[in-house]
């Protein structure tokens, strides 16, 4: 399904429909939903790219937050347009991803996860501690006169979302996908196949970082306000992973399906249960746990015919202590 033309055509039709609907039937509520779905598609696709290479990010809000600040600061400082700041955020996010890949070198999945988790939290504290730049806890407003209409931003977001899926699809058809897959299953074996894990990893993390950062930038224009809590909220980290997991990890359709389902779900619980603090996150947590335990291939896997089609690759035990009694 993921590489089937049906999905691509379906996606194209869906986005066209959404564009038409929003243009002719300009309902703010609908636009808001579609905007949130769009940014989440970008974020989730970005997360899934890293996961494809066996890298679990627990800090996608770091990229998102940096992208947000890039957009707001650039706009306020020299009146950058949406497009300009979007491009800038792509670059900054890409560089940040590349740096992250360099710093984490050959660290295994668990440590990559830990580093990303710490990264977003560390950046939040840094943002809080340099109020001269970020406004600190008080926050920062994007100059009102620069902001385009919500509708323009929505269109921009939708296009970017389609763009991110296209990028993912292009990668899926490229050598990079093969390399990612090999790295995920067994990094040592990948090396033997002549795949340079570090270089491929750098490319993957850079692209993924650029995407998440760009999503944050668009969202900053949409929201118009930033503070460290908003920019680096754990919420985005959670959304970024839960959408692909629910939709179907390691597929192109998964993040898209998951993003739609998650926004529908959170709007649903908001309407039916009201805004009770913690309830939506609690649901997300439950979804995460239930999906991993019972639906490891997500909704897409369900459509494809049961969660057990792909044989799980067992995780190799980490060699911690030398087993042969080598002298330390």
């Amino acid at each position, binding site marked *: 399904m993921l590489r089937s033309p049906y999905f691509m055509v379906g996606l194209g039709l869906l986005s066209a429909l959404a564009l038409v609907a929003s243009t002719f039937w300009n309902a703010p509520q609908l636009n808001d939903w579609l905007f949130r779905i769009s940014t989440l598609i970008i974020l989730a696709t970005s997360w899934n790219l890293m996961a494809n290479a066996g890298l679990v990010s627990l800090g996608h809000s770091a990229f998102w937050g940096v992208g947000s600040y890039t957009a707001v600061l650039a706009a306020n400082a020299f009146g950058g347009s949406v497009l300009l700041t979007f491009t800038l955020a792509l670059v900054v996010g890409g560089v940040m991803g590349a740096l992250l890949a360099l710093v984490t070198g050959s660290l295994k999945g668990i440590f990559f996860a830990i580093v990303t988790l710490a990264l977003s939290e560390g950046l939040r504290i840094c943002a809080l501690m340099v109020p001269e730049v970020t406004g600190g806890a008080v926050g920062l407003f994007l100059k009102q006169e620069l902001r385009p209409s919500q509708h323009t931003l929505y269109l921009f977001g939708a296009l970017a979302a389609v763009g991110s899926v296209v990028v993912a699809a292009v990668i899926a058809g490229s050598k990079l996908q093969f390399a990612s897959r090999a790295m995920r299953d067994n990094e040592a074996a990948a090396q033997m196949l002549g795949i340079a894990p570090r270089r491929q990893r750098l490319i993957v993390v850079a692209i993924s970082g650029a995407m998440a950062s760009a999503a944050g930038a668009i969202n900053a224009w949409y929201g118009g306000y930033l503070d460290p809590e908003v920019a680096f909220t754990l919420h985005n980290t959670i959304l970024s992973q839960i959408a692909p997991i629910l939709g179907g990890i390691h597929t192109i359709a998964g993040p898209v399906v998951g993003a739609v389902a998650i926004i529908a779900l959170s709007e649903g619980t908001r309407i039916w249960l009201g805004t009770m603090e913690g309830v939506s996150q609690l649901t997300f947590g439950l979804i995460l746990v239930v999906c991993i335990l019972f639906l490891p291939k997500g909704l897409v896997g369900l459509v494809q015919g049961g969660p057990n089609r792909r044989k799980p690759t067992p995780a190799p035990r980490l060699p911690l*202590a030398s087993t*042969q*009694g080598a002298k330390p």
Partner: protein
Amino acid sequence: MSALLEVSNLHAGYGESAVLQGLDFELGQGEVVCLLGANGVGKTTTMGVLSGLVPASEGRVRYDGIDLLALPTHERVSSGLALSPEGRKVFPNLTVEENLYLGSFNRNARAHRMRKLDEVYALFPRLAERRTQSSGLMSGGEQQMLALGRALMSNPRVLLLDEPSLGLAPLVVQSVFAAIRAIAATNISILLVEQNTHAALSVASRGYVMAAGRIVLAGDAATLREAPELRDAFIGKAQSKGKALHA
């Protein structure tokens, strides 16, 4: 007399590759039997299946009248089956004595711990000298003694020894095999897997030759020593190994 350990039509493997393909052999009470064969024919896998580390896909193992394969891994030791694994696998950061204590972790053996400890130290005085040393710092030969001693600590009826001579100097191999002979004299049944055919046949009364996951030759030690098939089994190793991997 029916055999203490009776393996019939055993199949096992890892993922797609079948290693054991219908293995049959038996081990009598108090007997020392060796399994010979080239690298990759499934000797270590056999030991893995018997000790519970590797699941069997087909076949039967009867041990003292019970169905061994139905027994959970952790209960096989207390039923009297102990493996000294290939590569020794001592606990490197634990002391020699701690390693030996772990050998008698199971409840049946715990009652005999002090008696067995004395026996092991009598058999391997070297271990007694080094009882408080981290086992990872010892030489290969000493680690092999420790692995043997650790297996003995479980008060076993059947001792499974996987490549006890691996990587050891000839002189050390001699002393290890002297110890094995001493253990055999105490009426413990021993199944010995070895590449060192000469050493193995010097302690075993009978032997089996394996190729591509099954027995190709069986006989008593004297016959096997002369058997031309034994040499062939080793010479043909590349072929049989390839078959086992691609089956």
